[in-house]
């Protein structure tokens, strides 16, 4: 079964429910249909095509106006821009060529010679496939800039909110979900800090998830997660509602040579608790460390490791992640101020998802998406359905923004 035609269509629904619906037609082309195939493709992809065309024209103008020898800084910027647009120009040329070929092929579909008809039909099929691939994949991938955070690892902080020990129990459950997800994605997850609660749950936890795409994937999990279920400890069978909060921070490469995020002079390092005479007089473990970044007021306390050195390393890692997070948020805000940006940032105090055990249902409030897959989310790899949907939704918003801008 081959997809002959992929139609790209934008259906504006509620803010988060824009979707590209991808339809495929598999019917043998009849004459009346074939005539309109190109029109159909161009009509569906009109906005993308217009955007691509504008960019290609921009490139051609630049090429026409540029001189042979590059001397001024403007020349260099111009040359860089031309180079940037090169792949798009090539994709556009390919689109034009295929389009022309398709026009020439269509009359041959009704040729008197059956061999010719068969050849034409094959050609037709592959041309349609190429054209729709250009529209649905090549152009969008060249227009949507690659994620600047794709190489970043993630720091996932989970904190229990309302609901007492039941919230802690659920936090323990979600922690397992994320550890499993990391495993499936071939990321390396390590629990940095974990405070167990008396009732067998986990009050809070920090997990470091290392690997390409870890931050880009997990960042969608930031926000308040709500659970509705009958706690194991509830004798009367009443449904309780409790919440936990997830914060996902970007983790920059630890041994980045020069730290652009902060200067050491701005960080106050304190050890916790007094230690009397210290040294040989005391052998109690005192490894807790607190950092204060003066310019931002961010403080990080770390006490989970047995040595000060390790806690200090961890604390700096978290500080770096918080500062990187601020920087990314700031970058996004600047971008939004510059151009009308439709891409939404996560509001960490907003409720993003509800896990309803009674109805076996998980609802993502940002997507307006409910799936009856609670067991697969909690026990298998169902989480990826939500993360993938968020990612798709994001890419579409970016695409739309780009199209509207041009």
């Amino acid at each position, binding site marked *: 079964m081959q997809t002959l035609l992929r139609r790209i269509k934008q259906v504006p629904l509620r803010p988060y429910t824009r979707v590209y619906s991808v339809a495929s037609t598999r019917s043998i082309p009849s004459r009346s249909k074939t005539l309109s195939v190109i029109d159909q493709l161009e009509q569906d992809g009109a906005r993308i095509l217009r955007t691509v065309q504008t960019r290609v024209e921009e490139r051609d103008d630049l090429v026409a106006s540029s001189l042979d020898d590059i001397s001024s800084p403007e020349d260099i910027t111009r040359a860089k821009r031309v180079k940037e647009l090169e792949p798009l120009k090539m994709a556009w040329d390919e689109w034009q060529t295929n389009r022309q070929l398709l026009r020439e092929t269509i009359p041959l579909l009704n040729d008197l010679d059956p061999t010719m008809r068969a050849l034409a039909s094959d050609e037709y099929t592959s041309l349609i496939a190429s054209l729709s691939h250009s529209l649905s994949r090549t152009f969008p991938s060249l227009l949507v800039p690659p994620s600047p955070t794709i190489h970043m690892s993630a720091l996932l902080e989970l904190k229990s909110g309302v609901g007492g020990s039941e919230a802690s129990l659920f936090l323990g459950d979600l922690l397992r979900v994320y550890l499993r997800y990391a495993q499936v994605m071939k990321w390396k997850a390590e629990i940095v800090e*974990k405070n167990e609660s008396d009732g067998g749950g986990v009050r809070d936890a920090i997990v470091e998830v290392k690997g390409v795409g870890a931050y880009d994937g997990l960042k969608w999990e930031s926000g308040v997660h709500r659970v509705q279920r009958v706690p194991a400890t509830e004798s009367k069978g009443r449904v309780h509602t409790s919440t936990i909060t997830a914060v996902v921070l970007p983790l920059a490469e630890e041994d980045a040579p020069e730290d652009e995020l902060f200067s050491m002079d701005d960080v106050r*390092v304190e050890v916790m608790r007094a230690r009397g*005479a210290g*040294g*040989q*007089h005391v*052998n109690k473990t005192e490894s807790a460390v607190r950092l204060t970044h003066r310019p931002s007021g961010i403080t990080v306390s770390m006490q989970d490791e047995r040595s000060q050195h390790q806690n200090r390393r961890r604390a700096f890692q978290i500080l770096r992640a918080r500062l990187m997070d601020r920087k990314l948020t700031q970058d996004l805000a600047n971008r939004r101020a510059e151009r009308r940006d439709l891409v939404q940032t996560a509001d960490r105090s907003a409720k993003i998802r509800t896990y309803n055990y009674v109805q076996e249902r998980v609802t993502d409030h940002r997507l307006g998406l409910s799936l009856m897959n609670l067991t697969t989310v909690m026990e298998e790899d169902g989480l990826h359905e939500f993360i993938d949907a968020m990612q798709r939704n994001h890419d579409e918003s970016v695409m739309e923004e780009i199209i509207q801008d041009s």
Partner: protein
Amino acid sequence: MPRQHHVAQLFLALTKSIGRQSANQELNWMKRATHAGCLKEMLERRVEGEPLQYILGTQPFGPLDLLTRAPILIPRPETEHWAIRLAELLQPTIERPLSVLDLCTGSGCIPLLLCHLWARGSTRAYGVDISDHAVQLAKDNAARCGIPGVASPHHFSNVYTPYLANVLDATFGDSLPRSFDVITSNPPYILLNEYHQLPRSVKDYEDPRALLGDPPDIPGTDGLAFYHAIARLVARDGVLNEGDQTMVVLEVGDKQAAAVEAILKTEGRLNRTEIWLDPWGKERVVVGRRK
């Protein structure tokens, strides 16, 4: 479940002796160290007063994870802090190597950290201790960290050789294997009258020889016997190299820095001295240089 009840009781007792927060943390660490034995036993030993580091059998020291074994002194965070600082201060290379002598080496933590952090093939270290158990532990730790005890012509590596000797012996300086660029030491520095006030986890478990600054056979009550001996040692010709990196780095007890500084200047002929603070703000290290 009577057994669990028992663990809970033990935990409560621990909470009373070291505070809720510390007890929680230590419980976590015990749970993680499943290799070290069953939780109940660990808690029992801890409530008895045994140091956590002996129960778990290891102690992190910078990026290293060292073995701990009673009664050899457990590496302290103050020592970890200055050893890292020293490692960052001097950065020997194959072309500009350094020789190191660590007096009273104990677990070997100080020279092992330097050997680990400094470039391969840049460091030749020796360690001296009076206790053969300590020398054995230092050797075991070196093996654990992948630092050989003898130089091999076949591959570049830093080398650390711990050996048995008495630093206080008048003839100690005669038998040194070579001359040195850096001499480090965290010698015993606790006063006898303070010793009796020490927490049980220190007094009852760690070797008194590792702690007492005035060994029984030496007159003195200021806990500075080792500093006098070290100062006399470094004043001898041929012990310290002439070089701009040459230095003596000594950990000191609370309020001993000024006295040790004076000893290094007068008896050690080290004119340039410096005091380093520990993370708690105490004067913890005296550094002496010839010029």
